[in-house]
């Protein structure tokens, strides 16, 4: 009897051999990879990106040394190597285990989520607590507000920050104003909305946005952006437990690429408190999220090319309400400020920080405040390397600030 192969298999193999006969692709580099060839100027010899970052606490020893984890009493406890998506999963697990009113919902969260941040939760806590919603961001946000108005803890997921805009009315007009407009008769402190954000190398217009600036303009909201697994777990737990509606934007490129020794215990990190991740005396460099790794490389390039110069690198962590005091204290020491973020420059968050620091530190400033940001174009696909405030652009801006 003849073995009948399925038609699709035959077609597939024909296609495969056709492709194999084509000439090799024009560009040798993988066009949509996030990595850059480190044999070229000005990054020659440097190990770039999150894979080589010294900001990550990869060893148990480095984790134990962290002052904030020590203050929380978890630095001496158990830890486990987790990437950022596992750390976020762990934070949600702790939430569900300690708060009976907590639920997690959004599109596709039940099977584990498109980024696997909710893997295992439905199996452990049941599908009355971890459930899929229909495809409606305005519905997800409104539903979450209603649950929180009843005093429950609603952890809602928006699948990509790019799709948060249908929920803008609910977030800005309802969630943000809920306590104030009711004279504190009601509040939605139990509301947390999580969304993957920022560039991922191949996301284009609608899988790469950083919308924090839209929400940073709204009294009543909190906005948080973590840079690493340890940060994400602690900040997310803090955001969920904070008695105000909070948006938690997770740089998606870090989900798998950033891994640390994360304490397995329950802990929170402080909201509205920036972290000085590297001390220096000559210039203050501020960023948040995945941008921290580009800035780390820029600082390494500066300190290599301008011996004796040291840069103070600050992770803002909470965008609203933000810790202007830590930044002002640093600028009063260094006299120079560079702010960087992936979101477009015009009306981006750096504009707010620049205006505030200019007001507080005017006489101390030695040079104009530099902003290194995404270009004022919709986040482009094939041009992303030009759009991004990459290490080289950030390096150039810090140089300008130091050479003014």
């Amino acid at each position, binding site marked *: 009897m003849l073995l009948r192969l399925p038609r699709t298999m035959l077609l597939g193999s024909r296609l495969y051999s056709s492709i194999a006969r084509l000439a090799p692709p024009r560009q040798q580099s993988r066009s949509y990879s996030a990595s850059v060839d480190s044999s070229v100027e000005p990054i020659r010899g440097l190990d770039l990106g999150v894979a080589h970052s010294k900001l990550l606490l990869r060893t148990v020893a480095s984790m134990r040394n962290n002052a904030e984890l020590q203050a929380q009493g978890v630095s001496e406890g158990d830890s486990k190597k987790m990437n950022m998506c596992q750390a976020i999963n762990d934070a949600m697990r702790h939430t569900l285990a300690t708060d009976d009113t907590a639920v997690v919902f959004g599109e596709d969260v039940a099977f584990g989520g498109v980024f696997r941040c909710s893997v295992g939760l439905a199996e452990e806590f049941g599908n009355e607590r971890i459930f899929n919603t229909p495809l409606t961001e305005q519905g997800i946000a409104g539903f979450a507000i209603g649950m929180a108005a009843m005093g429950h803890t609603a952890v809602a997921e928006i699948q990509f920050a790019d799709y948060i805009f249908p929920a803008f009315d609910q977030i800005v007009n309802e969630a943000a104003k*809920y306590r104030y407009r009711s004279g504190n008769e009601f509040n939605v402190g139990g509301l947390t909305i999580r969304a993957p954000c920022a560039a991922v190398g191949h996301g284009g217009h609608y899988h790469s946005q950083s919308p924090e600036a839209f929400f940073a303009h709204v009294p009543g909201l909190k906005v948080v952006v973590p840079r690493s697994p340890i940060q994400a777990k602690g900040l997310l737990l803090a955001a969920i437990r904070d008695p105000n509606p909070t948006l938690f934007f997770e740089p998606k490129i870090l989900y798998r690429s950033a891994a640390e020794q994360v304490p397995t215990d329950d802990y929170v990190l402080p909201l509205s408190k920036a972290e000085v991740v590297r001390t220096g005396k000559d210039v203050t460099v501020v960023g948040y999220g995945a941008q921290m790794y580009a800035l780390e490389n820029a600082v390494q390039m500066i300190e290599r090319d301008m011996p004796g110069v040291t840069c103070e690198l600050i992770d803002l962590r909470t965008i609203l309400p933000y810790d202007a005091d830590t930044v002002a204290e640093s600028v009063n020491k260094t006299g120079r400020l560079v702010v960087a973020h992936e979101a477009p420059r015009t009306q981006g968050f750096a504009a707010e920080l620049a205006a505030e620091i200019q007001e507080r530190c005017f006489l101390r400033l030695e040079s104009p405040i530099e902003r290194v940001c995404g270009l004022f174009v919709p986040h482009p696909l094939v041009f992303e390397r030009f759009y991004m405030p990459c290490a080289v652009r950030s390096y150039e801006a810090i140089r300008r600030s130091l050479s003014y």
Partner: protein
Amino acid sequence: MLILNAMDQILYEAQRQGRISFYMTSFGEEAIIGSAAALDPKDQVFGQYREAGVLLQRGFTLEQFMNQCYSNEKDLGKGRQMPIHYGSKELHFQTISSPLATQIPQAAGAAYAMRREGSKQCAICYFGEGAASEGDFHAGLNMAATIGCPVIFYCRNNGYAISTPSIEQYRGDGIASRGIGYGIDTIRVDGNDIWAIYSATKAARQIAVEQNKPVLIEAMTYRVSHHSTSDDSSAYRSTKEVEDWSKRDNPISRMRAWLIGKDWWTKGEDAEITKAAKADVLRAFAAAEALKRPAIRHMFEDVYDQLPPELEREKAEIEALIKKYPDYYQVNEFGR
């Protein structure tokens, strides 16, 4: 219904005289009180803006209504919102907000919370046929149906959304036909028959709490009122149309006729009630008008659970400013 009617008449006049900034009446839609009566007092109410009758039935006092409309220091809302944006935690009535239909998915979520608590309570969500065109209506009903939320969606189809008549609002068979599309048990009732509303709401409540699913009620009524004090509806409909409706199909006259038919009421008996209601309203009104506005510090509180540093700074700036220019800012009108 008579008390609501009396309060509406007086507060509408108050706005016309410039004593309060804004008002919305419920003329012709007083039968909504029937829906409130069919609920448990702990059922959560999410309203739109024309549900003062529900709040009255729950026990909101005339003083509380006036205090909110006057934005005085006794307003539960602390003077932050326009008149008629009532709310009461004690009476389980969520504070009204101006954006339309936002309450619909919220009511679904609140109902889900109650389902999780096993409290056998439900949520009721009121909205007009105009608000039902918003995306939030679609989102809220669909979510309530798929997730299984004990919520009653109550549509007040009163024929107008400001100047837009229902023929320009939808082309299908009202709002009730949409419920079927979402897989939701639906009923259309005579929105001017207080007993029909009461029965329908009672039945809906039972379905909602026993089966943990939503029910849609479309109550057909007529907006005798102008949309609000900012509207003069003679610009888009004839006064004859309004008068005809008022005479032919009015919840208060229908109730009166029904009671008289049962020999439980006599003609002219409500004149006394109306007179007493008006006196009560005027008394509460005078008291509310005499009070000061809320203390200025209430402008800064409740944005967050605690004042962030930014607001502490702004508060200090404003305090310095009003110290320098007390007459310009008319600080004597505000409490301490």
